[in-house]
């Protein structure tokens, strides 16, 4: 039994095609303007360069969305996936304000918020999350977070400083990031 699922993002191979984002949108049929997975771009001057981080919900150990939600919409499954009971959402957007990674997205037409559920239905059928399956460069990987961390132990604080990411101590995200500059 997996204790906690998570993602690994290998920035070294990402060239910003955004296939993961589109595959997610297609799989989950999210409304216009609602993207559960986004690809952030970073540009550097010294030396000139560009890097990308693909990120959705990090299914944190201490999910801030779950903590602030007044309608008890969010819950954490035994395998660590943070899922939302969409019917219960009242559209207060507290989860959006609280999530350090901007994972929940508000749909003004429906008046509700939604977010990545790590393709829980696909996982239950033994399939991979759609974003992982669709990535042409093998940038996104997925699995037991302990296994992923064993495979690559990056200093998250250094990555956070470099890419201006939120402090991981706030929510303890289940993500491993291999920075673009690291050697193969």
């Amino acid at each position, binding site marked *: 039994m997996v204790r906690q699922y998570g993602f690994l993002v290998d920035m070294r191979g990402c060239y910003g095609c955004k296939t993961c984002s589109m595959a997610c949108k297609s799989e989950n049929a999210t409304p216009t303007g609602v993207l559960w997975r986004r690809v*952030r771009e970073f540009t550097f001057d010294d030396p000139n360069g560009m890097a990308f981080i693909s*990120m959705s919900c990090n299914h944190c150990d201490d999910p*801030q969305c*779950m*903590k*602030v*939600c*007044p*309608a*008890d919409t969010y819950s954490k499954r035994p395998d660590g996936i943070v899922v939302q009971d969409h019917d*219960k*959402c*009242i*559209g*207060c*957007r*507290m989860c*959006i*304000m*609280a*999530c*350090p*990674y*901007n994972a929940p997205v*508000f*749909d*003004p037409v*429906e*008046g*509700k*918020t939604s977010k990545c559920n790590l393709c829980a239905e696909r996982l239950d059928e033994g399939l991979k999350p759609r974003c992982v399956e669709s990535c042409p460069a093998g940038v996104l990987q997925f699995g037991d977070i302990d296994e992923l961390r064993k495979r690559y132990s990056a200093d998250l604080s250094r990555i956070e400083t470099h890419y*201006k*990411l*939120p*402090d991981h101590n*706030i*929510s303890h995200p289940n993500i491993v990031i291999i920075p673009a500059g690291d050697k193969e």
Partner: protein
Amino acid sequence: MSEYELPLVFFTVLCQWAVGSIIAMTALMTVQPIWLNEETRFNRLRYMALAILAINIVGSFLSLLHLGSPLGAYRAILGLGHSWLSREVVAFFLLNGVVFIWAAVVFRFNRNRALVKSVSFVASLAGIAAILVSAQVYYQMASHPMWHTLITHLNFIATAILLGFVTISLMVAVYQYRQHAPQGKIPGLLLTGILLGVLLMFWVVLWYSHGVNGQGQMVRSAIAVLGSGLMGWLIFGGLITGTCVATYLYKQSSISMVGATVLMLVILSAAVCGRMLFYSGVMSQSPWF
């Protein structure tokens, strides 16, 4: 996402105005019992109590406009065990009940002065508790340094004290203007309350300024707040006008209804601007990553 969160701005400012006014009215009853004993003066308090009740109810209803699905608002109490927003909903539901009882007691049972004072005291405490629960909603969000600080609590309390004490001081001054009688002094406690509100608000503004020396999101929030024209109105309308009102009422203990209305609107609009800055300081940074 709306940068200013206007429904939340008006919800918090109006409800804090109502609570501050109850506190100031309780202070007035305590230091000048004549307001409880003299019929014409007590009638002023009775109508003021109804106005405060209306402000609190309107403010509470405006909070519903923030919801994307207002019809599901009843589900907002399901997270009572962990969510401060759920606790805020319950707190303001209860506060409306307490303020209703308070207004009813002031309006109907005016012969029992001790009861009026006791209920006013309880309503004041309930109001302060509700404001602190409100502040916790934002304090709970550890990823936003501008909210995750006790300055949030101070900000909310400062707004309540400033608006409440200005309101009741002006009410007393207008009453004295209309009576054409030998004027008594505006109670020092009310004027001290105004200056305390100004001082606390000034502390909040100074803390925002200090944020420029911080790091990460705090610097961006501080720059957004200090660079906004709304800050100018907060300083002029809240800090400077508030101080001028206290000084004027110390020297001159009466004012016309028109003058009082203009001053109240200036200070109220400054409080609204201050709250807009409170939300935009964080929300304008979205997406924070």
